[in-house]
């Protein structure tokens, strides 16, 4: 209100979302490929489990993550004592939080796209001597751009919008881990309605602009 407008959450969120989207893109495409390409026992179960983060209320998911990744959690403890890495209440945690929500969107959409590709094209590439990875990189993936971009747009939006998981594992440390979602929430809760509206407006506009660019890219030509 009286204090001058804080731009940190916007920049921070943008960085976090972009990073998280990139990670989700990489992991999601990889997982989607495995799910689409290889037949193994429990494949559909794995697919279902990957979707799980969407099902749980984010705060609760965050709580459980906090239990696992926190200083007393087995994973958090391991990371801290062996590798000297602390996750919770750091920007890294914000990235993890955003990634967790973006990943299922990525995996499911991309897998469906991969499976929609005419297998003849992949087969012909194999007869031309291409190994599985080259087939994937040069045929499957480029032919799936539309689906992958759509999924990326979703993942980015979701990464930007995460609040529950972020506030749990990254905390709300202004100037350090406060994402724009958390900042908007705070502003609303504190009754700083105009600030909340301004932030919401800026986020919405920039999100729409970014999504628009992604769309243009995805559906161009």
């Amino acid at each position: 209100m009286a204090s001058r407008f804080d731009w940190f959450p916007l920049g921070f969120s943008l960085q976090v979302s972009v990073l998280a989207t990139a990670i989700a893109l990489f992991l999601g495409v990889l997982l989607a490929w495995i799910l689409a390409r290889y037949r193994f026992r429990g494949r559909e179960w794995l697919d279902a489990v990957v979707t799980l983060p969407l099902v749980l209320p984010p705060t609760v998911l965050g709580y459980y993550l906090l239990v696992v990744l926190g200083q007393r959690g087995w994973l958090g403890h391991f990371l801290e004592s062996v590798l000297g890495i602390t996750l919770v209440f750091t920007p890294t945690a914000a990235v993890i939080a955003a990634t967790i929500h973006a990943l299922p969107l990525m995996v499911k959409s991309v897998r469906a796209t991969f499976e929609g590709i005419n297998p003849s094209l992949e087969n012909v590439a194999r007869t031309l001597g291409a190994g599985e990875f080259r087939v994937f990189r040069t045929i499957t993936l480029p032919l799936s751009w539309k689906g992958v971009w759509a999924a990326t747009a979703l993942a980015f939006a979701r990464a930007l919008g995460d609040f529950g998981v972020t506030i749990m594992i990254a905390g709300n440390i202004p100037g350090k881990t406060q994402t724009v979602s958390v900042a908007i929430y705070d502003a609303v809760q504190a009754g700083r309605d105009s600030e909340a509206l301004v932030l919401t407006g800026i986020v919405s506009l920039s999100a729409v602009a970014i999504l628009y660019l992604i769309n243009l890219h995805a559906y161009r030509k």
Partner: protein
Amino acid sequence: LNWSCRSKGLQNTSLPESSLIVAAASDLTDVFQELGRQFTHEGQSQVIFSFGSTGALAHQIEQGAPFDVFVAASQSHVDMLEKQGLVLPGTQRVLCTGRIVLWQSEGSPVTVNCLEDLSLAGVKRIAIANPEHAPYGLAARQALERAGIWESVRSKLVFAENISQCRQFAETGNVEVAILALSLSRRPGGRFVLLDSSLHEPIRQTLCILRRTAHQRLSRQWVDFLLSPPGKAVLERYGFSV
């Protein structure tokens, strides 16, 4: 919009029409659940609680939430509702005041006995509820300020969404200390140091009956029960000053 009608099929609710809906701040969660059991036990109707942050509940009330009684963790929100004519005139009361504590989980690497200990090097992070909108967070800030260490510990602070989350941060060992409501400190798993009530403005748990209630009689019974000696005893047992 015809599916809004169709969705009536969803209303196979498990609660009788006559039950009372009480919107209450989260710090009252434990104590109200006990009080609710007693109230029902005394042959009165069932009470349904909708716990949430005071701000969110007040906002919902403004938009027509079907609550009968509202118990806020601060007075200002009730005042605001009163101004809007949403409160049944003359029903605003201060129920009790909350206290704050320094809370540490078992196994915390450092031991904190007073506010000044928060400056110790072993205390790397301190969780408080967001002072901007959580009454207990505000009180925590006031206490830190009056102790003169607000500026020095500021970089250690992690703001929680609400007082419960604040506790979760400490419980899971991710902060060494949390400033909590006394009412939530009774749960097992930690130790606490009560802070002097002079360090902060009183955290007035304010109640009122809402104008839209269809169960005025029942609401009054519930309020009376809260304000009755047995009710007060329970509140005190949970760490509220009456």
